[in-house]
């Protein structure tokens, strides 16, 4: 049995072949799907000679394997190419927009977990009674309703009708300057700048998109928690705990929940990957200046390098999310650790 540190190291090393696979797939798929990016640069009246020159300058004249090697070489220097739309390096663009997506993702996921796990436990311990039916009904709608639609409904209720929350204009109301960038997270930077008033504005702006994300991620989390918890409650070890005189609460929260969390953690990894890879439509609805919006623009304008950079970033996020899941697993489940 290898010690914990060695297992973590081995798991970390696996990231490299996986990342290489992702990059390779992205590169060749983009080449298959996107056709010839020369057309994006060349004016319609360009001669064949000019097109050939552009192609050569873009490095597209080389055979594909050579292009791939060049791409890998650039990638090692964190060079993802230049965005056709913004005129900046794609890496810089992604880096600029990353905090907005991460902040929204963290808040949304926190809401999803904070609501999903207790609801799942509630449903499991009251199985086939009304709390269970309510949770199952709500979560079913959370899974079935498209996220962008939920976002629009929330806007129409809380902004248009009730006027409780501000409209979907991004991270801060229009005309309000950002605080000095430290972490890029507005909920942190506003406090670091000593501006609780700005914090409150930012919190109100993030509330609706985060609630939308929270609603749609709480749904699967609650359902998986419910079924895993229900299974744990019927297990032999729970029967033992009851037979030894443990009370309901100890049985639920100590002797069942931890066992039930294993599949939940796996699910959260997937949900997190999905969220942090940019909720593309959601960010557009809320004018959220994150990666999802960037990706949508890149698709609309056939921005080859930008899209490819985004896909690589999104895939790596999944890799990282599942790496964290695996590490968490080792922590929760001693059968893996020992």
């Amino acid at each position, binding site marked *: 049995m290898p010690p914990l540190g060695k297992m973590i190291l081995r798991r970390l090393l696996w990231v490299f072949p996986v990342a290489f696979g992702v990059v390779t797939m992205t590169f060749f798929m983009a080449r298959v799907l996107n056709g010839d990016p020369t057309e994006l640069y060349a004016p319609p009246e360009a001669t064949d000679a000019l097109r050939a020159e552009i192609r050569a300058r873009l490095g597209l004249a080389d055979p594909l394997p050579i292009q791939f090697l060049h791409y890998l070489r650039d990638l090692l220097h964190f060079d993802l190419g230049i965005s056709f739309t913004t005129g900046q390096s794609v890496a810089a663009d992604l880096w600029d927009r990353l905090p907005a997506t991460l902040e929204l993702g963290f808040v949304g996921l926190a809401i999803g977990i904070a609501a999903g796990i207790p609801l799942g436990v509630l449903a499991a311990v009251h199985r086939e009674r009304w709390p269970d039916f309510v949770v199952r009904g709500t979560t079913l709608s959370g899974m079935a309703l498209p996220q962008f639609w939920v976002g629009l409904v929330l806007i129409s209720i809380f902004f248009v009708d009730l006027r409780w929350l501000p409209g979907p204009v991004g991270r801060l109301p229009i005309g309000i300057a950002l605080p000095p960038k430290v972490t890029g997270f507005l909920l942190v930077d506003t406090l670091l700048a000593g501006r609780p008033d700005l914090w409150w504005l930012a919190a109100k702006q993030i509330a609706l998109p985060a609630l939308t994300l929270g609603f749609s991620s709480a749904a699967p989390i609650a359902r998986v928690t419910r079924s895993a918890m229900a299974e744990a409650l019927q297990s032999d*070890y729970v029967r*033992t705990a009851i*037979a*030894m*005189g*443990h009370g309901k609460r*100890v049985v639920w929260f100590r*002797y069942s929940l931890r066992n039930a969390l294993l599949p939940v953690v796996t699910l959260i990894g997937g949900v997190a990957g999905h969220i942090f890879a940019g909720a593309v439509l959601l960010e557009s609805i809320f004018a959220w200046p994150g990666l999802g919006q960037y990706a949508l623009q890149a698709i609309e304008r056939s921005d080859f390098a930008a899209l490819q950079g985004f896909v690589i970033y999104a895939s790596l996020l999944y890799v990282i999310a599942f790496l964290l899941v695996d590490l968490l697993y080792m922590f929760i489940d*001693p059968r893996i650790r*020992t």
Partner: protein
Amino acid sequence: MSDALLEIEDYSGAFVGETGELTPVLHGVSYRLKTGMMTAVVGESGSGKSLVALSILGIQPPAFERSSGRMLFRGSDLLELDERAMQGIRGAEISMVFQDARAALNPVFTVGRQLADVWQLQHGGSRRAAMTQAIEALRRVSIPEPERRALQYPHQFSGGMAQRAMIAMASLICEPSLLILDEPTTGLDVTIQSDIMELIVELSRTRGLTTCLITHDLGVVAETCQEVVVMNAGRVVETGSAEAIFTRPSDGYTQRLLSASQLVEAA
């Protein structure tokens, strides 16, 4: 007062199906567990012997519905107690050892922690003191290196070791007057089986426990138990002293059960 610690009277019930239909499984089960004695409840699987035992602690499957009966423990009916009162009985007065000890222990907590949790529940005190008691209990059931073993998880225990830990939990950490053992040696190697039975007999004797051994292994019964209850298809078909049952079985089913086991032993 009789000399019985637990008297089960006319216990009947059925499983409720998905659509509400009833499948009767227990038919007027009555037997007594005499104080300080080891009583065997024998019968084939499906005879209802485990179901009755789980009902004593109120941990029968939820699909089971009682239609009649009383379970008098020290003269008061366990079936009339509310959940809170029943929780006070579990572990403190009556505890149970289950068949598959490795599944009966929680896979994500160390064995020592699980024993210590029960100790704290039953006796209070600090977590450290509870852990000391857990280690002592493991030592008492002859688990080698109990300090190290207490920090291990159930999957690191062999089946026999896990059953020893389970017995330590049910009989030493809990300090019950009635110990129920539901097929405690089924699935273990034959040599381990006899070690475990020896441990059970020795613990019940030294601690003056009333013991109920649920088993289908008549060989074990003959060596260890004073009283025998024979169950078949949800009914008690015969009760009596072990000697009477083994030498002069009156019921046809008991006779068949005996001859079957003797055939196995002769082979």
